[in-house]
């Protein structure tokens, strides 16, 4: 899932925005076993293309794009969604929505503190008096985390610009409130966006309209359909069937009355028109609690840590409350999570394999919380491999199992996290003896949060065994231990 702010490197904007997406795509797809090869192919083709295109040659294309691209996308989306109405009606509707939204729509820019070069761009919407603007946390994350290096500014569709101040954020749902530092006198004339009342929920298939400034090429309206909430997602997100692009992050998504139903946040690059919105209720909650807050001038890390702490508490409680799934293996009970908010992928060794045969299951959460470019947190993953080494014999099996046990990465010290520190021993669970390693890393800037990894390898059979790994990111130390115990107790030897 690529987040939708357009971030630039050191060359022409837009271009770099695409290159940035390439890496996002790779990161994202890496987590899906089935998509690996695909990710490589795509990354290989996208990378050189972004480099090879001369900035000068792209410039006119970019300028032409806002008019051409969204309309095509909207039209094709609409054709799939509906066959009763003619295209004239559709574009008239999109046009009406855009006319309504136009004065209240803005681009939110992150600029370097001492010059006017933009580091990233997103979108935003006027939602309150005195220039109160709703956008994504990830659009303003650089300013939130490094106010000494970055500042915020806005530009309206009709070209009014000015400075912005961060006043509140909800890092878990990726939302932020910013306010114009000195709102223009005519600001009240622009009005503010209303939210769609919770009493009248959208029905699947209803047409909704996303506004924003894709790739910094110009303000655009994108038509698409509401498809309910994303399934098996711990954090509720709306599945929007429409084309969102980098730069649209934080922009409002409106129903046909022009009321906000969600906020643009992310898109999947391995699909077509699979985009995600933050439901409006979280934005309303943030506005209710933060609209009158003073601009944030101190470090945001304490607030952020508190929000993440609350999230991990809920996640841990829900996770531990779920029983493990029944596994079909003849000898081993293995902790495989319910798919309430995780998605599992299975794979196995080829049937003609001469070495170690294995069956593998990879479960992980779709939603990770964006903190900064190099840190996502607040999610979990569980995986296991069941090994059959009967073709190898005891010695070679032990060697292979050891190889697989050894090469697990536990991470190194980074800007965000300490190096891992581990505890290891033989652990017995349900009659199964395992070599178990638990490694924890502390967040260097978010006090009280840890990443935990538990790696366990059964050691009581000569030519068969099971290896499992559990990872939780951004949990308290106590919850890390609780989760580790819960996980280890999911293993058992079936008699």
């Amino acid at each position, binding site marked *: 899932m690529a987040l939708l702010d357009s971030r630039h490197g050191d060359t022409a904007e837009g271009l770099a925005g695409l290159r940035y997406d390439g890496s996002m795509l790779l990161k994202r797809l890496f987590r899906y076993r089935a998509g690996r090869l695909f990710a490589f192919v795509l990354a290989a083709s996208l990378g050189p293309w972004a480099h090879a295109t001369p900035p000068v040659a792209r410039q006119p294309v970019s300028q032409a794009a806002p008019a051409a691209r969204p309309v095509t996308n909207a039209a094709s989306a609409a054709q799939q969604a509906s066959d009763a109405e003619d295209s004239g009606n559709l574009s008239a509707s999109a046009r009406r929505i855009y006319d309504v939204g136009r004065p209240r729509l803005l681009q939110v820019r992150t600029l370097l503190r001492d010059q006017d070069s933009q580091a990233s761009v997103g979108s935003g919407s006027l939602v309150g008096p005195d220039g109160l603007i709703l956008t994504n946390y990830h659009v303003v994350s650089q300013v939130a985390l490094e106010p000494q290096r970055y500042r915020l500014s806005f530009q309206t569709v009709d070209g009014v610009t000015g400075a912005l101040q961060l006043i509140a954020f909800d890092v878990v749902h990726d939302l932020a409130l910013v306010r114009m530092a000195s709102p223009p006198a005519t600001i009240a004339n622009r009005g503010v966006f209303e939210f769609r009342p919770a009493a009248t929920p959208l029905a699947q298939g209803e047409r909704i309209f996303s506004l924003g400034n894709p790739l910094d090429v110009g303000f655009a309206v994108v038509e698409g359909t509401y498809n309910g909430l994303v399934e098996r997602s711990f954090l509720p997100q709306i599945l929007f069937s429409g084309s969102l692009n980098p730069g649209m992050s934080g922009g409002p998504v409106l129903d046909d009355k022009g009321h906000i139903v969600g906020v643009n946040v992310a898109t999947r690059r391995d699909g077509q028109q699979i985009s995600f919105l933050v439901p409006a209720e979280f934005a309303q909650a943030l506005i209710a609690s933060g609209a009158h807050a003073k601009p944030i001038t101190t470090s945001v890390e304490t607030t952020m840590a508190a929000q993440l702490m609350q999230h991990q508490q809920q996640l841990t409680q829900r996770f531990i409350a779920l029983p493990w799934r029944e596994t079909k293996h003849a000898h081993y009970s293995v902790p495989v999570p319910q798919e309430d908010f995780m998605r599992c992928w299975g794979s196995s060794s080829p049937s003609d394999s*001469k*070495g*170690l045969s294995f069956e593998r299951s990879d479960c992980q959460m779709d939603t990770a919380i964006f903190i900064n470019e*190099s840190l996502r947190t607040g999610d979990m993953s569980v995986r296991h491999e069941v090994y059959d080494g009967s*073709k*190898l014999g*005891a*010695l*070679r099996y*032990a*060697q292979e*199992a*050891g190889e697989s*046990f*050894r090469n697990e990465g*536990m*991470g*190194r*010290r*980074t*800007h*965000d996290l*300490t*190096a*891992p*520190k*581990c*505890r*290891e*021993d*033989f*652990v*017995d*669970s349900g009659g199964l*003896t*395992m*070599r*178990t*390693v*638990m*490694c*924890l*890393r*502390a*967040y*260097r*800037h978010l*006090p009280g949060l*840890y990443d935990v990894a538990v*790696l366990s*390898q059964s*050691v009581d*059979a*000569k030519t068969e065994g099971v290896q499992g790994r559990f990872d939780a990111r951004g949990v308290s*130390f106590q919850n890390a*231990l609780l989760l*580790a*115990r819960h996980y*280890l*107790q999911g293993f058992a030897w079936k008699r």
Partner: protein
Amino acid sequence: METLALIETLDRDGRPCQVLRVSQWPVRIGRAIDCDLVLDDPHVAAHHATLFWRADAVHVEPASTVNGVRLGKAVVAPFSTPPLPPSRLLTLGATTLRVRLAGDALAPEQRFVDLHRHERRHGVTLAVLIVLAALWHGFDQWLATVPGTPSYTLAWTYLGVPAALMLWCVAWAIGSMLFQHRFAFWPHLRVALTWLLLGTFAKVVAGQLAFALSMPLIDKAGRIVFIFAVALMIWHHLELLVPRLRRSFGIAIGSAVVVGGGLLLVARSVQQEPLVGDLYLGTISLPGVRLVKPVSADAFVKSAAPLEKTLSRWAKPGDDDDEGSGGDDD
């Protein structure tokens, strides 16, 4: 006539290459053919120096020359006639001469060491080492392959390590050619095999023992032993090249291990990595090897509680913050 003394011209390795029997003093030395000892060193004058007998000692009198006469490192001043030092070594130009007198006490006869016979005596040891190494390497390769791997593939992977070892020993043998004038391949092979086998043995046994007793420290000790075995191997290679510098080589390698190891420890501790070895014990062995009882999941998790203290210390901002230094490596 009675031989009063011998004057030996020494080559680079300190062996006489020209010997003059002296039956009467003085002895004139130079390039001119009317000298008693004629040298063909271009750095020597036609008449370079004269050796003469006075007061029961040999004295040297330099003639008028460009390069002069040196006794050890001291240059003999013009017009002075000093006695030769106890070593009776003197250097004229680029040529070193040694004077032996009839009455000099001789060093006792030394036992002759026939290097070839010496090697033959170690031949059995060497053969045993080679067999051991070949067996271990074969086993190691076998462990890493799956059943049904074609034998030619096996052969290729199998031959890689011996080939590298050959090259290593050939390089050392060429070194011994330089210093010892012999191509000492087998002695170097013996040194390499001995220490590599010892080191590997220590590492493997330590790994298994660490697993058996659930004590990762033993594995770390095994890795240290391996490093020391490699250091000792290099020391012995060097000793074979120049035996008389044994001590100096020992000190050099010892300090290299201490300094290199120290730097590595500092780097690892800054990076918050374990000082020696891996983050956790990577050995998985046969079920029967495990000697200790497993603990319950609950007890295991509880035993991890002290990690919190270390981690919160590591997470503290300040002292070693790597802002902007590219510390992000993921």
